[in-house]
């Protein structure tokens, strides 16, 4: 079914009758890997695409008043097939591509052209040394998420951290972001350890028996700390930390109090309406990737409405302009940073079933936007965009 739809839309490209149509594609690049620790975190089959469906529907409602139509193609790929799939889209004239892929794949796809919206990868290097002029990020960066947590911990006066990081490269990068956040906001990392991934399945029957013995021992004899901060992008151990640490200390970061761009319990600023629409459509709770694909498509829709145009260049120029404002249930207008293409946005701090807080915390001020207290600011960016 999905293939048929995609094919029909592809055939229709390039015909003048479609002048008022805005075509985008969502390409999800799935890598084989171990399943998450908790079965609650198993990946839904329509992850990201479901947010795209909602974004397209919202755009279509508005487009109905503007005489504009929106089509979104869904493409599933592997790291091996991603470039060929991308080439097909570019050949068909699709200019706007939303990617759900890791950092390396995202860069490879962006190198091929189009205007790429990164809706999944959070790594700082993709906004820094590996940035691209045609790459915008609706997913927040690691630095934004770690700063969001750091601001809250400083507000709590929990400024002594025990940092536990995973052994994967993306874990190290996330731990680096926490080290940077600690320096930026005045916290001290009093102790740090690396949790080695010994491989194997992360879910086993009665796996908790071993964990209950291992985790206290692993966290024993740490220097005095207020809180354990876990940097576990790969999802190997952090979920096991709360209540298993040697010292009675709360856990934050990759478990416990967790920075996130979206959360099914988020209700502020009209978010309930979005949650209800999404859940009615998809029959499940939304994840970050769903929200992020929705934001990417809404950015296109907003540009089309405001410019009353479907010309891809007009839309891209508007999205990058100072006039662009995206309303996305975060209580203020979101826009793209011109120095690295990152969407500035508040970050939720989730604790279990509720959103415990939202950063930036009101005490942290900034000369341009308070949201720029989160992440890499203009003066410190390593992004050097050719041709921009």
């Amino acid at each position, binding site marked *: 079914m999905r293939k048929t739809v995609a094919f029909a839309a592809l055939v229709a490209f390039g015909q003048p009758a479609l002048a008022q149509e805005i075509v985008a594609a969502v390409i999800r690049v799935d890598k084989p890997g171990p399943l998450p620790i908790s079965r609650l975190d198993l990946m839904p089959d329509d992850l990201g695409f479901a947010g795209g469906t909602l974004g397209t529907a919202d755009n279509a409602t*508005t487009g109905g008043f503007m005489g504009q139509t929106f089509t979104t193609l869904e493409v599933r790929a592997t790291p091996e097939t991603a470039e060929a799939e991308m080439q097909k889209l570019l050949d068909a004239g699709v200019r706007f591509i939303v990617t759900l892929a890791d950092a390396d794949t995202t860069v490879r796809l962006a190198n091929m052209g189009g205007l790429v919206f990164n809706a999944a990868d959070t790594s700082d290097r993709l906004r820094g040394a590996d940035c691209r002029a045609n790459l915008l990020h609706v997913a927040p960066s690691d630095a934004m998420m770690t700063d969001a947590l750091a601001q809250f911990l400083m507000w709590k006066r929990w400024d002594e951290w025990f940092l536990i990081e995973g052994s994967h490269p993306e874990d190290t990068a996330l731990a680096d972001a926490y080290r940077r956040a600690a320096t930026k906001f005045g916290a001290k990392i009093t102790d740090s350890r690396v949790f080695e991934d010994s491989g194997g399945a992360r879910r086993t029957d009665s796996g908790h028996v071993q964990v209950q013995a291992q985790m206290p021992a692993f966290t024993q004899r740490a220097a005095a700390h207020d809180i354990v901060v876990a940097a576990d992008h790969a999802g190997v151990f952090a979920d096991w930390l709360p209540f298993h640490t040697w010292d009675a200390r709360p856990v934050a970061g990759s478990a416990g109090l967790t920075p996130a761009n979206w959360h099914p319990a988020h209700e502020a600023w009209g978010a309930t*309406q979005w949650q209800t629409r999404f859940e009615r459509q998809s029959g499940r709770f939304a994840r970050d990737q769903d929200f992020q694909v929705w934001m990417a498509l809404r950015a296109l829709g907003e540009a089309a409405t405001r410019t009353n145009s479907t010309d891809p260049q007009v839309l891209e120029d508007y999205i990058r302009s100072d006039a662009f404002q995206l*309303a996305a249930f975060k209580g203020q*207008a979101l826009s793209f940073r011109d120095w690295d293409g990152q969407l500035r946005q508040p970050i939720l701090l989730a604790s279990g079933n509720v959103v415990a807080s939202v950063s930036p915390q009101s005490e942290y001020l900034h000369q341009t936007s308070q949201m720029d207290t989160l992440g890499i600011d203009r003066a410190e960016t390593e992004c050097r965009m050719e041709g921009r």
Partner: protein
Amino acid sequence: MRLIAILALVAGPAQAEKIFVSNEKGNTITVLDGATHEVIHTIEGMQRPRGITASPDGKFLYVCASDDNLVKVYDTATYEELPSLPSGPDPELFVLHPSGNPLYIANEDDNIVTVVDVNTRQVLAEVPVGVEPEGMGVHPDGSIVVNTSETTNMAHMIDTATYEIVANVLVDSRPRFAQYDSDGSHLYVSAEIGGTVSVIDTAKNEIVHKITFDVPGVLPEALQPVGVRLTPDDSKIYVALGPSNRVAVVNGETWEVEEYLLVGQRVWQLGFSPDSKFLYTTNGNSNDISIIDVATNEVVKSVPVGEQPWGVVAVQ
């Protein structure tokens, strides 16, 4: 029951002004005496009350009970609950036709405006509008009802005779509230995220001005216009500015902001006393209402109400 009614009748001629405040979190309506501004009663038994309005004769109170998916109706004299009105899912804001019937309700979850006959309690029409309909306003002559949609960012002008949309005006991000002036020649639409109030010439359905806000020492993103009210002579426009905890006083002729009044925290909706001498503001994060003297633009008093007050209406 009958006793209460008789008591109310006895008190009839001297029935004083009452202020009704919907408390979104408290699940209550706080009733204040309009003269003393003291809390005299609390109506309970609803879930997540938000939009609140009264019939033109002041006898009936209508409340959007959002989590009940109903419009609750109360007798303003006895506080007796009367049969509810169907509202469609998740009603947030509504507006009554100037004649007192029908009621036009914004259903945020369904992208529709529901039109309900308040006497027969029948749904007369469902009008498809943009994504997340919220603000509702009605032309003083009753010919047009306007809805604002928060994600589509438009004001949709709906013909009240045909239920057809006759015009769409694109405004700034997240339009929350729509208010006509006394002769209906201008429509004011607040945009919470856009930070503006658009002034729409209703003859041409074009924006002729955008009112912007600037308070020294307050973050621009905190200046989020929500509720809008005009004095009966259109000389002053009051705009509630959300998390900046201020109400702007705008000159009705020049559209220049003349003053910012400090009120309670996260001020959303506004309502005049029946004689328009006082303006009441609902301050969601400080659980109170502020009372503004319209002649002097002074905030004369704040009164604690229930948890997270949302909307306010005063009746004689």
